[in-house]
């Protein structure tokens, strides 16, 4: 499957596992609930591991936090595009918990939200909207002005002191 990662279209190697499937070696993600139960055995495998959050229980992030150094990817599955909790969760992951791995957006989100998602720390997108991925790349360029700080920098409000 093709996805957008770090503002490029790439062929994705990650496999999203459900609860039942035995984990193969390689790059796999599992739901948070499964991670909680099978954490040790999942880490025994060969390959990278990712955890999927459904973004409907913000406290899961605190639970996951101690494990972050051992995982390579956190996937935020937006339940509905209008549910903005994932935006806070992404920012906390990047800034509060200092997660340097891949933060991937999946689930229900709009092309128009990719600019915002990128600003709060999401760097990979499983975009399934009507626009081709080549067009979706343009979403990152929608605005050249950022007033407020987010996971991607300081924002114009602070920069303005330089010109004061």
């Amino acid at each position: 499957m093709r996805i957008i990662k770090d503002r490029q279209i790439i062929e994705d190697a990650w496999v999203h596992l459900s609860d039942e499937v035995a984990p193969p070696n390689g790059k796999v993600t599992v739901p948070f609930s499964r991670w909680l139960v099978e954490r040790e055995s999942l880490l025994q495998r060969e390959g990278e591991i990712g955890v999927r959050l459904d973004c409907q229980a913000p406290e899961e992030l605190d639970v996951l936090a101690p494990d972050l150094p051992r995982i390579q990817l956190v996937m935020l599955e937006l339940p509905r595009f209008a549910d903005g909790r994932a935006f806070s969760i992404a920012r906390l992951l990047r800034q509060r918990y200092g997660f340097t791995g891949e933060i991937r957006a999946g689930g229900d989100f709009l092309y128009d939200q990719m600019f915002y998602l990128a600003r709060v720390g999401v760097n990979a997108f499983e975009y399934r909207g009507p626009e081709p991925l080549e067009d979706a790349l343009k979403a990152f360029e929608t605005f050249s002005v950022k007033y407020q700080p987010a996971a991607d920098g300081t924002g114009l409000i602070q920069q303005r002191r330089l010109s004061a």
Partner: protein
Amino acid sequence: MYTYDEHDQRLVDERAAQFRDQTRRYFEGKLTEEQFLPLRLQNGLYIQRHAPMLRIAVPYGHLAARQLRMVAHIARVYDKGYVHFTTRQNIQLNWPKVEDVPVILEDLASVQMHAIQTSGNCIRNTTSDPLAGVCADEVEDPRPYCEIIRQWSTLHPEFAFLPRKFKIAVTGAPSDRAAVRVHDIGLRLVRNAAGEVGFEVIVGGGLGRTPIIGKVIREFLPKRDLLTYLEAILRVYNLHGRRDNKFKARIKILVKEMGVEAFREAVEKEWQAIQGTFPLEDDIIAWYQARFVRPQYDPRAAEKDWEDERGRQAEFSAWYAHNTVSHKVPGYRVVFLSLKPPGVAPGDLTSEQLERVADLCERYSFGVTRTTHTQNLVFADVRQTDLFELWQALKEINLATPNIGKLTDMICCPGLDYCALANASSISVAGDIYRRFEDLDYLYDLGDIRVNLSGCMNGCGHHSVGHIGILGVDKKGEEWYQITLGGSSADDASLGERLGPAVAKDQVADTVEAIIKTYVDLRLEDEPFLATVRRVGVTPFKERVYANH
């Protein structure tokens, strides 16, 4: 007022381009109705009863002459030649076409205006005191902070999809003219014991179907912490606000369900983690203060009390007494333009009037007018010696009705005539009441009375904080009206108490009249209406109103 720099301008231009693209994708079927909905709402575009409605942002109520002219042009070309001023100090167009909105946004951007976040589940237009910067009781001018908050909240990547809409008001004066206690966040500039200026932070107030007076969660917040503290509040709300029930999704319900102490703790904990990350240093504040172009007041402007002219001209005298207030700069006075003349929907203005207001504010008030949350306009900086001339000019365009703060200066939502949510035709009821109280001498004898009308529970007419609140409800397809007494959105904020069963539409004016007669009978010398209601309670009013039912 604030003037854009090239960054601010680029942002509104890019926003207009973005919406042009979104509208195209919608018409091409690439965005579903459901997907287009939040995108158009965040550009102020509703689909209403008769036509779309577009809400234009007026940050903290400031409008320059060229902006007024552009709004007049837009109303004439793309609408029916008039606009409506709202309680959020914004402007609404009632009849635009969806396909015209991209070009309307481009026109607005050309005069430093936009419709960003005037609707939708995001941080809305920041409102303020219409007397900001000119009232003598101010601790500090709140407008630079309003602008900082406007920018911080504009296209905020984390808070664009909140559980519900989110409203912030800021005031710099102890006398609250910005209704800060009925906002999701209310900020008051205050001085602490050490003489430093900072913010009192009030959270969880709001109107609508569950009206609540906000709670103070911080007595004193240093200025440098303003934005991190706002971020902490918004993050707690975004993560923990209810998303299962639209009617319980506002922050006031979260504060109520958690309890204000637990809510405060959650905010403080969040804030501790980010407190120093982007301080609002003095030099940043100074940058914003410097971008506010201040009027060049004439130090030689003369004081004039107009006593002789007032003796000769009763009408002018009434206007002077009721529609103007004092100014902190000697030789100047603040003038209110009443958008509540007889026979006009409260808050409506035609394109021709807008253009005349533009001319007049250029001539008499440094080219700026302000909107108020009571749906009037203000010329904040008028030379006292110009008052008579200005009055004559305002009379010509029907904006000199001397009723500011009086019973006929009603707040009224558009109601059933325009709004898809409404149950009742608030505008015609306001008209009924108006006709009953047209005698100005009687109105002056009654003193200041705030009458607020809403056509539905959502409370756009702020009925729950009216001294007399009137709420339209639907009973088996008929319009009925619930009356409340004793509400206030000022310093002494309170919610009105229900008078009794709802009354029929044709009884509303009679009911208001009975309430007023009761007040006249019960008041002590010079006692204002609200004070009488608070002293005697609603029972005497109830007995009188329902005596013949």
